C-alpha cells in the first residue's frame, strides 16, 4: 500500500500547546493554596465547597488543561487529524477555558453563585468550540488503529462528562434549578474513565512503544480494549441511573459492570507495566518512573473501588486521591517531561535544521530539561502524594505538610516549563 503525501504543516506552532502546559501548574498551585488556607477540615466532608474548588482546579485546571494542549499537538501526529487554524482556535479555547476554571473555582471557594453562572457560560463556550473542532477533525481522519479509535471514544466521553458537569453546575448556580447530586457519580465516572483514562490509554498505545522502546501492545488490547471500556461504562451508567430511580434497582448489573470495567483497566495497567519491565533498552528516565507510579496507583484505586463496592464501604476520598493524583497526574506530569523537551527540540529543528551551522547548536532534549531536574520533581511528587494519602487518615498531622509539599512541587514544575520556553526563545533570537 502506498501512503499519499500528507498535508504539510500537520503540527501547530509551539504556542498552541504551550499556553495550556505553562498555565496548568498555576492552577495546581492555587489548589495547594486553598488546601493550606482551609487546613485539615477539607478532609471531613467531600461535599465542602472548598473541596469542589480544589477538585476542579486539579481536574480541569491541571489535568484537562494539559490534555487540551496535548490534543493540539497529538491529533496531527498520532491521528493525522490537525485542528483547523490551531493558533487562533487554541487562543480562543484557552481564553474561555482558563477564565472559566478561575471563575468556577473562585465561585465554589467563596460560595458566590454569580461566579458559577459566569463560569458555566465560559466553560460551555470553551468546551463547545473544543469538542466541535476536535470531533470534526477526528471523525474526518482516515487513520485507523487503537490509538485513533480510543481518542474518538475519549472525546465522546468528554462530551458526556461536560454535559453532566454543566447540568450539575447549573444546580449550584441557580436556586430555581434542582441540584442533581445523584448524577455526580456519573459525572466523575465519565470524566475519570470515559475522558481521562481513555485518552491516557490511546496515547499509551503510541508513546509507550515509541519512547520506551517496548514491544507493541497485543492486538487484542489495541483493537478492542477502548471499545470494551466504553460499552461497559455505558451499561454501568444506565444501571447507575436506574438505581437512582425510586422503586427500580439494577444493583447487580451496576456491581457486575463496575467489576468488569475495573478488571479491564487493571489488565491494561498490568500489561503496560510488563512491557515496560521487558523493554528492549534498559535505560530508565523520570517519565518511565512517572508512568510506573501512575499505573500502580491505577491498579490500587481500582482494587480499592472493588473492595469498597463489595463491602459497601465509603472510601471515596482515598479512591479519588489515588485515582486522580496518583494515576492521572503522575502520568500527565511524566508526559510533560517528554513532550515539552521534545517540542522545543522539534520546533527548533523546524526553524533551524537547514540553516548553515545551526543544527549543531540546537540543544538536546536533556539540555531543555535535564534528567536530574525531572527526577527531583518525581521525588517531590511521590512524597506529596504519600503525604496526601496519609492526610486522609490523619488530617491534623499531615494536611499542611502535604499542601506545602504540593506547593513546592508545582512551583518547581512551573519553573522547569518556563525555563524550557525561555531556552527556546533564546535559541531563536541568537540566530
Amino acid at each position, binding site marked *: *500500500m*502506498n*501512503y499519499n*503525501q*500528507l498535508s*504539510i*504543516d*500537520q*503540527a501547530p506552532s509551539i504556542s498552541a500547546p504551550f499556553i495550556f502546559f505553562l498555565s496548568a501548574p498555576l492552577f495546581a498551585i492555587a489548589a495547594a493554596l486553598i488546601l493550606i488556607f482551609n487546613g485539615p477540615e477539607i478532609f471531613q466532608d467531600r461535599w465542602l465547597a472548598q473541596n469542589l474548588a480544589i477538585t476542579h482546579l486539579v481536574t480541569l485546571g491541571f489535568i484537562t488543561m494539559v490534555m487540551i494542549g496535548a490534543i493540539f499537538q497529538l491529533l*496531527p*501526529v498520532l491521528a*493525522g487529524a490537525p485542528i483547523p487554524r490551531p493558533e487562533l482556535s487554541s487562543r480562543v479555547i484557552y481564553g474561555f477555558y482558563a477564565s472559566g476554571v478561575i471563575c468556577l473555582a473562585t465561585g465554589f471557594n467563596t460560595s458566590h453563585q454569580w461566579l458559577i453562572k459566569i463560569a458555566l457560560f465560559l466553560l460551555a463556550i470553551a468546551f463547545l468550540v473544543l469538542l466541535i473542532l476536535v470531533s470534526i477533525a477526528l471523525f474526518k481522519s482516515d487513520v485507523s488503529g487503537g490509538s485513533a479509535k480510543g481518542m474518538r471514544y475519549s472525546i465522546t466521553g468528554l462530551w458526556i462528562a461536560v454535559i453532566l458537569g454543566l447540568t450539575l453546575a447549573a444546580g449550584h448556580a441557580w436556586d430555581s434549578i434542582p441540584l442533581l447530586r445523584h448524577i455526580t457519580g456519573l459525572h466523575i465516572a465519565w470524566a475519570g474513565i470515559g475522558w481521562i483514562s481513555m485518552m491516557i490509554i490511546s496515547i499509551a498505545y*503510541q508513546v509507550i*512503544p*515509541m*519512547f*520506551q*522502546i517496548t514491544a507493541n501492545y497485543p492486538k487484542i488490547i489495541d483493537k478492542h480494549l477502548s471499545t470494551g471500556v466504553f460499552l461497559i461504562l455505558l451499561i454501568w451508567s444506565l444501571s447507575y441511573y436506574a438505581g437512582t430511580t425510586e422503586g427500580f434497582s439494577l444493583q447487580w448489573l451496576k456491581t457486575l459492570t463496575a467489576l468488569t470495567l475495573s478488571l479491564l483497566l487493571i489488565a491494561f495497567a498490568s500489561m503496560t507495566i510488563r512491557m515496560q519491565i521487558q523493554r*528492549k*533498552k534498559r535505560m530508565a528516565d523520570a517519565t518511565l518512573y512517572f508512568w510506573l507510579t501512575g499505573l500502580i496507583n491505577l491498579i490500587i484505586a481500582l482494587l480499592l473501588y472493588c473492595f469498597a463496592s463489595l463491602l459497601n464501604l465509603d472510601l471515596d476520598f482515598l479512591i479519588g486521591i489515588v485515582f486522580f493524583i496518583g494515576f492521572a497526574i503522575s502520568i500527565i506530569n511524566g508526559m510533560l517531561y517528554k513532550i515539552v523537551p*521534545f517540542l522545543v*527540540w*522539534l520546533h527548533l*529543528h*523546524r526553524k533551524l*535544521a*537547514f540553516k548553515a551551522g545551526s*543544527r549543531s547548536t540546537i540543544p538536546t*532534549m536533556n539540555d531543555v530539561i535535564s534528567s536530574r531536574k525531572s527526577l527531583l520533581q518525581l521525588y517531590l511528587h511521590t512524597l506529596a502524594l504519600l503525604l496526601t494519602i496519609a492526610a486522609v487518615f490523619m488530617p491534623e498531622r499531615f494536611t499542611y505538610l502535604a499542601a506545602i509539599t504540593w506547593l513546592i512541587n508545582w512551583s518547581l514544575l512551573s519553573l522547569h516549563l518556563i525555563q524550557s520556553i525561555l531556552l527556546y526563545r533564546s535559541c531563536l533570537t541568537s540566530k
Partner: protein
Amino acid sequence: MDKEIVVDVHELQPPEPMQRVLDALDTLVDGQYLKIIHRMQPFPLYDILSDNGFKYKATDGEVSVFDIYVWRAKDKAAEKTIQDIISI
C-alpha cells in the same frame, strides 16, 4: 555509488530517528535517496522535509511497519528510481 541509503530507526527513541535522518540527508548526492525503516509515520519529519525542498513517499515496510523514501524535489533521477521501486 549506491543509489539507496538505508536509515533504520525503528528501534530508536525520539528524537534519535529524526537526528539520524537529518544527518543522512546532508550526505545525499544527485541520484541518491533515503529509505527510512520506521515503526510509525514521522509526521513532524514530513513538515521539515516539505519546508526544505524534499519529497517523501511512505509504503508498507518489509522490516518494520513503514518504509519511507525521501529524495530532493529537484532530483528527477532519484524520483524515477523510487517510482520504479514502488510500482513493482
